[in-house]
Structures are given as C-alpha cells and as structure tokens.
C-alpha cells in the first residue's frame, strides 16, 4: 500500500510538471500557431538558472521563483522579436524547425559546459521533513510543488478564461486581424504571450530543480512526453491541458506500480488509443 501511494505521489508530481508545460505550449500555440520545441530547453534553463543563482551568487529558492521566470521570459521575448516574428507568414512547420534548432543549441552548449550528468539542487531548510499521513509519508517539498502548480494552473486558467485581458487573447486566437482592427496591439500581445509561456516553462524548471537532477537533458526527456499529453488533450482548451497533464501523470504513476515495464511507454499508448477514437484529442476541436 505504501508503495502504491508513493507511486501515486510521484505520478502527481510528474503530472504537475506535465500540466504546467503543456499549459505553456497550449497558450503559445493558441496565439502564435507555433509548437514551441524550445519549451523543454527553456524548462532546463530555468532549472540551471536557479542552480547557478544558488551556487554562484548564494541567491536562494524563494528569490529564484521570482527572478528566473522574468529573466528567461525576457530571453523568450528576444527570441520572438528577432526570429519567430519573421516566420508568421510562412507555414507553421518552420516555427517548429526553428525552435527545434534553438533547443539543440541550448542543450548542446549546456552539455558541453556542465557535462551530461546531473547536479543536485540543495533544498532550502524550510522544506526539509514532511508529514506522516498514516498511509504514507508526504515530504513537505512535494506537497508544495503539487499545491503550487495547482495554484499556477488555476491562475492562468482564470486570467485567460475570466478576465478582460484573457478575452482579448482568446479573441486574437480566433481572429487576430479583427482584434487588431479594434485597436488592440496584437503583435505586442503575441510577443508577451510567448514571453509568458516561456516564463511558465522556466518557473516549472525552478520548481523541478530540487526534485529531479539539474541536467542538460532534462528538458528533452520531458518535452516529448508533454507533446503526447498535448495530442491527447487537444489544444483547444486550457482546462483540458491542465486536466490531461495531471491525469496522465497519475496514470504513469499507477503503471509504475502495477506494470513497471510499461511505465515509460504508457502515455504514448494512451495517445495511440485516443487518436483512433477521438482524433481531435479529448478536449480539442479540429482547426
């Protein structure tokens, strides 16, 4: 029983990261029509930035949560302005290829500097220890990650689905030219949206640093799973992306307990099944 709940918790944690990353991908895709292949690398950058802040400058976890998303998000804005902005008139696939190239560069440079093995991130003292729930032991930091990601996901959902800013965003997703005709600065909105999506990936990276090893490959490993999550959920809905992320994390965790051999492939199998019965994804619309 202990082991089952342990795997469930790991699944929930993984799910939290799947949800945050697929959320960022969905937001970017909605407005830019680009699949951001660099998303995994930006998540990795977030973790490394947080690690370097602590090791080199002695700046702790709390400040990292704030500084890192802003810095990496600003990097995202630069990428959007200098490169992605030139591709909007072309086929969407060029965006995929460009961001793939960027991901290779970032990952390669970090591998050459830090080596491919992981670096541990020292957890702040506040988070040491945990709670004994009777049926399982819940480390404080893991509880914090699940809680925090729920708050972030809900926050993003609320902003997009329930505020005026979000309504502009949704309108621009449907018909950018029309929204621009109403006097909304759509190009700037596009830039900021990309920056925001990237910042979300970096934030996920900061949160992941104390749990997983901070390694150059960490982004590449997770991003392909997140792509599968996105295909399963369909990119039509923000809530769908969040829900699918958590659900698949849990499914993966359960598989690790009941049939560990299939744990690395179960999400892809689910994807195949969904594609056969609901090609547009569980929450998606054909576009």
């Amino acid at each position, binding site marked *: 029983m202990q082991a089952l709940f342990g795997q469930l918790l790991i699944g929930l944690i993984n799910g939290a990261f799947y949800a945050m990353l697929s959320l960022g991908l969905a937001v970017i895709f909605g407005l830019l029509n680009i*699949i951001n292949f660099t998303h995994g690398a930006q998540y990795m950058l977030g973790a490394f930035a947080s690690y370097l802040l602590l090791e080199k400058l002695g700046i702790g976890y709390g400040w990292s949560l704030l500084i890192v998303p802003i810095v990496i998000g600003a990097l995202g804005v630069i990428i959007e302005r200098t*490169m992605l902005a030139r591709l909007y008139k072309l*086929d969407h*696939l060029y965006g*995929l290829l460009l961001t793939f*190239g960027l991901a290779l560069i970032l990952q390669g*440079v970090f591998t050459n500097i830090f080596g491919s093995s992981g670096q541990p991130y020292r957890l702040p003292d506040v988070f040491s220890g945990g709670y004994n729930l009777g049926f399982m032991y819940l480390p404080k930091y893991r509880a914090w990650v699940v809680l925090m990601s729920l708050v972030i996901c809900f926050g993003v959902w609320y902003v997009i689905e329930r505020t005026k800013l979000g309504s502009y965003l949704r309108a621009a997703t449907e018909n950018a030219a029309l929204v621009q005709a109403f006097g909304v600065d759509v190009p700037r909105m596009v830039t900021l949206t990309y920056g925001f999506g990237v910042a979300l990936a970096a934030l996920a990276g900061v949160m992941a640093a104390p749990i997983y090893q901070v390694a150059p490959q960490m982004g590449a490993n997770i991003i392909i799973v997140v792509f*599968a999550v996105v295909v399963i959920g369909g990119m039509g809905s923000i809530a769908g992306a969040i829900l699918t992320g958590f659900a698949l994390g849990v499914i993966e965790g359960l598989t690790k307990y009941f049939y560990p051999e299939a744990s690395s492939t179960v999400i*892809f199998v689910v994807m195949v099944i969904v*594609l056969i019965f609901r090609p547009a994804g569980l929450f998606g619309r054909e576009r």
Partner: protein
Amino acid sequence: MDAPASPIATRNGSKASLAAMALMTAALLVAPHVGVYPVFLMKALCFALFACAFNLLLGYGGLLSFGHAMFLGSAGYVCAHVAKVWGWPTEAAILAGTAVSTAMGVVVGFLAIRRQGIYFAMITLAIAQMVFFFAVQAPFTHGEDGIQSVPRGMLFGVIDLSHGLAMYYTVIVIFVAAWLFIYRVVYSPFGQVLKAIKENEPRAISLGYDADRYKLVAFILSAALAGLAGATKAIVFQLASLTDVDWPMSGEVVLMVLLGGMGTTFGPVVGAFILVGLESVLTSGVTIAGITLGPEWVPVITGAIFVICVLAFRRGVVGEVAAFFARRRR
C-alpha cells in the same frame, strides 16, 4: 509545407537532377581510386538514401514526420539480428529489415495521417519515442551496446562483402536504384497527385482523389525506403545501435532535407553529404580562431544550421541553385 516556388518540378529541372545523379554516380565509381575514404562515402550514401526517403514525404507530400528514425533504427536492428543470430544471407537480412519498417509504416501512417501539420509531427515523434523505449528494453537489441559485429556475409552467395570495395559498390547500386525509384515515383501520376494534395488538399479531394490514401501510400513508401537505408547501414557498419532510433536522428534527417533543398530530387543527397562531411570533420576536431571544436559541438552546430536555414535559406542548396538558373533564363 509551403515550398518556395520550386522550378525543379519543370521538365528542365527533372533533367538537371538526372544529369546531376549521373555525374555523381560516375564520381562515386572512381572516388575510392583517387583516395576518398570509402567508409565515409558509404555512410554518406546511407544517409542520402534516408534523406531522399524522408523528402518523398516532406517535400512532395508536405508531411513533416519527426520520428523517421524509428524506421531507420528498427530496420537496422531487424537486419542485424537476422543476419547475426539467425544467420540469414545478407540480401535476405536487408529485405527483412525493409519489410519490418514497411509494416511499421502501415501502422504508424494509418495513425498519423489522422491529424495534420503540427499534430502530425508531434504524433510521429511520440510514436518514435515509444519505439525508442522498446529498443532500450527489448533483450534482442542489447540496450546500450547495440548489436555488434554483424557479419557482412556473401551477397547472393558469391560476392564477399567483407572485402571493402565489394561492399562499397553494393551500396552504390542500392542507393542509385532507390534514388531512381523515388525519381520515378515523384514524376509519376501518383507523384503529381501527391503534390496536388500538398498544395491544396480540399481541391484535390473535390476532384475525386482520396487524399488520405495517397498520403498513406507516400508514408509507407517513405518508411520502406528509410528502412532500406537503415538495414544497409547496419550491414555496412556491422552495427545496429540506439543512436539510429533516437530522436536526434529524426531531427538530423529533417535538416539534411531542409539544407539540401526540400521538394527537389537531388537536394537531400547534397544535404546528407554536407552534414555527414561536417560530422566527420568535427570528429577529429577543427581549430578556428584558436578555439578547438570537437565532436561534442555537433549538436550545437547542427542547431545553428537549422536556425540559419529556417531564417534565411529556406530553399536549400539545390533550391537556390535552381532558382538562380531560373532567374537567368528569364
């Protein structure tokens, strides 16, 4: 994918690529006798075939698969396994590898063509990742070690392939035959319909063409030829390893086609030779302005070429050359 206006599709263009191919074959036949390393050429030819197979799907079908390594790698494993463990003759082993990748093409193609554009890319990537994990876990692939010292054997029982040049000329025959087959497909009525679907799918459907069927056939052909490349590669290098099923390989073949010229019959060959050449140069290390770049910089440089190609060089080498001549003719 929107190809930048492709003059290659004209009859002049197709003659030019045939001429280029004839020249290249002649050069390949003499190359080992003037000091070019045959192992390098065989590697480049295997990748050139892989890239041509991929281009059939991307350049003519407009479908960007991000998981083509699964066909290259799986065919390599199957070919290596049946040649080494079951002792099949070389030609049968290569055919077995090709057959398996063809069958995989049927299944994956059926699933992937249900979605278009970006989704198509993500689905192929995800399925390829599944195949990769299978290759990591399955006992017959020997995990990280791969299948090593695969016998080259005797081709048709008479030609001893362990002799360097015999293998080399065999690879040339396989490559040229496959390239001519692709050329034939591209300029056949089937190829024309495929291009029509790529340019305007609803219109092609309204003319009565079953678009999905054409796409599926293109996918299967592409998978089969990628498998042929993988199986041949396994025999040449006597090795089938995880590198060939992993996702960087899927990215590399996209770059070969993009760099050489999407939707041109000869472009992928050029792209493959450039990238394989670049890698072999970096393996021994290059010093530029006091900085030594070794093999560990291959991914970074590959990524940089990707970015440059997408931003400024979308027609690729052959596409630019063709565009240059098209401008001059006017």
